[in-house]
């Protein structure tokens, strides 16, 4: 058995035992000396839908940055899809990120390109053949309800529509995990609910979904697993849980 095969088996075993996302006693202290996470341990298994909630500055965004390997942990280990992110070499990061789908509060779309180009860009990065891109992009745009708007510039779209484009881009490469950092933060209630419904559908199709949010109403209504972070520590992790207020 070759080295690559051994590593693959090791990753699969880790995913089986600890989950697709596994934080083992993770602490993060910024260079300014400010602690963001303190001995956090968390397992998220394949196919789960998890809300990570907490107030501003609680460490939620740091957690997302660690999962994206934008930051590395000061101590402890972060595993995503069986990869120990601390051991990931710089040149391996792009390939690792392709296994994730990411959605941000501010959409982060390429505003000088149209809807089709924004979604197709994610496929071009993984060198999908052009004829497959032509097939996949309209299909995923139809899934998020934007079939008729593929030619529109992103700035011509409403906030809800822009977030759908971001979702389509995150999903077009069939990621195993979808990370959504405050996906409804810039949306009105109607659009927020529509995006959440889409995320539920994506989860039902088999993708692990992790949503970082402030939206108490949505968290309480959906009754999913809720991980509450407070001052860098997980204070509660409950299946079918609720948003716990600071006070």
């Amino acid at each position, binding site marked *: 058995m070759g080295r690559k095969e051994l590593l693959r088996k090791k990753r699969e075993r880790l995913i089986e035992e600890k989950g697709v996302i596994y934080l083992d006693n993770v602490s993060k202290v910024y260079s300014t000396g400010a602690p963001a996470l303190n001995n956090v341990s968390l397992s998220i298994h394949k196919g789960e839908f998890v809300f990570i909630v907490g107030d501003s500055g609680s460490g939620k965004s740091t957690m997302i940055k660690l999962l*994206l390997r*934008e930051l590395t942990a000061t101590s402890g280990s972060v595993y995503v899809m069986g990869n120990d992110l601390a051991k990931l070499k*710089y*040149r391996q990061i*792009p*390939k*690792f*990120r*392709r296994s*994730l789908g*990411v959605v941000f509060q501010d959409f*982060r*779309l*390429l505003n*000088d390109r149209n809807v089709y180009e924004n979604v197709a*860009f*994610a496929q*071009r*990065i*993984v*060198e999908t*053949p*052009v004829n497959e891109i032509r097939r996949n992009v309209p299909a995923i745009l139809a899934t998020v309800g934007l079939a008729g708007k593929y030619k529109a510039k992103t700035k011509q779209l409403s906030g809800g529509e822009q977030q759908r484009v971001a979702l389509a*881009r995150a999903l077009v490469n069939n990621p195993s995990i979808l990370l959504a950092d405050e996906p409804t933060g810039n949306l009105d209630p109607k659009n927020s609910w529509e995006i959440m419904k889409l995320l539920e559908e994506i989860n039902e199709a088999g993708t692990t979904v992790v949503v970082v949010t402030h939206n108490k109403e949505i968290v309480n209504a959906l009754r999913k697993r809720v991980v509450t972070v407070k001052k860098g520590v997980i204070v509660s992790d409950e299946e079918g849980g609720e948003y716990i207020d600071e006070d």
Partner: protein
Amino acid sequence: MKISTLLYTVRQGFVNIFRNKWYSLASVATISACLFLFGLFYAIVANFQSIVMKAEEGVSVTVFFHNEYDKCASRGESHTATTDQRLEEIGQMLAARVEVSDVVYVSDDEAWVNYVAKNFKENAEDYVAGFPENPLAGEYSYVVFLSDVSMQDALVNWLRSIPEVRLINYSELTASTLSGVNLLIAYVSMGIIVILLAVSIFLISNTVAIGISVRSTEINIMKYIGATDFFVRAPFVLEGILIGLLGAAIPLGLIRVLYNYTLTYIVERFEILSSFLNFLTTEQVFGVLTPVSLLVGAGIGFLGSIITVRKHLHV
């Protein structure tokens, strides 16, 4: 890399120019301004150098030798006439020296013919008839042309050490003036190049700073989605090179038109000037300026884009 990815990268390079048209325009204008000054300066300096070099080519040292007609004995000096063999030896030694570009032997008969032709153009035959024998008999000489006028003194000193040499005709003033002009051109060139370089760096760094703010979001997004550094960088680098080439082509076109016009104007209006000043042809100037400008333009564009993108790659 797949061909489709390569084609995409190339297409993006071109498309980027139009997407960020104001940034592209600012970059092209900056590079154009720098290379216009550079080109203009080069055209002027190259012509100056050509004129000075032409003048240098005309600078010669004439060497006369002791001969059978020498009257030196009357002054208490005694010299034997230079033999043909010795004359040839000296000629070969002269030709072998580094400061010498050419050696021409002028016999005493040729010297007389030249003298008559120069001084008595209209009634030369009558004049010659008055001299049954060559009055310049024994005045044979070597006319020595210099490869570098600043080395004239070294040559003259060497000639003085040869016993057969009777007289050396040379102009110290011409040589020192031309050497001075050469030195002045070198200093002025260096000074202007330093100023141009400083201005270029200032202008280009400002343009790059604008580029950084324009690009940061775009590069961040690409990196979050999983783009490799190469995939992110390649279209920007290609865009930079294209902008650089365009920034070089515009001043080249402008200077070419300007140079042609100026050259025609000088030749037509100041005929006397152009008869003794050796201006370079458009082909001579642009044979050097075109590849240098395009290379510098592409280089600036390449480096500018590399610097711009690099700052945002580590996300």
